[in-house]
């Protein structure tokens, strides 16, 4: 087995036909990639080797009311499998993440497409709900 915990994620991205970049440092292993032009990341921390996070971050449109966005995020957190939707109110950003615990990211590889789909769907639903509320 490779010492690189994200090697199976690289293989999953190959399976999906996607390019990726690595940006590891002393704290974490990191992959960034795009799919249909949208940016995603995968992170694994060196001091917590069984934790994996897949995510995407978006800027909130400026006229959006933060309380409205929080309410939508809360509904999605209740309803959606896997995905956590969080607002960083100061930065006016919204983060969609899937957080997983496994000793081997090879377990994630066969489900990686499904996890990407649910990340995309959650972001789509979040912004659709916000637009509908305008």
């Amino acid at each position, binding site marked *: 087995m490779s010492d690189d915990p994200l090697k199976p994620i690289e293989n999953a991205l190959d399976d*999906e*036909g*996607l*390019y990726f970049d690595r940006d590891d440092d002393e704290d974490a292993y990191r992959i960034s*990639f795009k*799919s*249909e*032009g949208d940016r995603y990341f995968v992170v694994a921390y060196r001091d917590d080797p069984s934790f994996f996070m897949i995510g995407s971050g978006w800027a909130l449109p400026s006229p959006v009311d933060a309380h409205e966005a929080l309410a939508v995020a809360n509904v999605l957190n209740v309803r959606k499998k896997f995905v956590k939707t969080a607002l960083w109110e100061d930065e006016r950003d919204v983060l969609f993440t899937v957080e997983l615990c496994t000793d081997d990211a090879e377990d994630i590889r066969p489900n990686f*497409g499904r996890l990407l789909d649910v990340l995309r769907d959650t972001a789509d639903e979040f912004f659709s709900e916000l637009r509908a509320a305008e």
Partner: protein
Amino acid sequence: MPLVRDTIAQFIQAEGHKVDIASIDEESGVSEILFRTRGQVFSVTTYENAPGTFTISTAYEIPDWAREATTNLETLAHAGDDYPDVAFAMAHDGGLFIASCDEEAGSPEAFTRQIWETVARVREAGSHAIERIVDRTESKAAAEKFINSFMRGER
């Protein structure tokens, strides 16, 4: 002036996707760009002689147990009614069907602005069609099972 094929291929790559490019008809400048997205292989056909025209296609495999169904062509026709801009064609002796959409975008740049919407529309139409094929075949199989049981019944 860059080839239409290269402009579109570079765009898809910049959006994160690996591509394979094949020349379909070198003389008339028809090429096919293949890429994967959301687990499905799509192709974009480009025409150097018509730089504003594109075709996006994807294939759906019909499960073995549903291939003999005589209703599949009719089901595809009905699915086409629901998505009038998407064309369906059966291929490989009924083993798969192709969903495709012709786009008159006007220019390669205009096409890049709408490519993912078109991909989504073709995907939605194809998924809808395969669901209808599977549902219809399953319904028919279930009915046949019921009818056969009924015919074997005794009084």
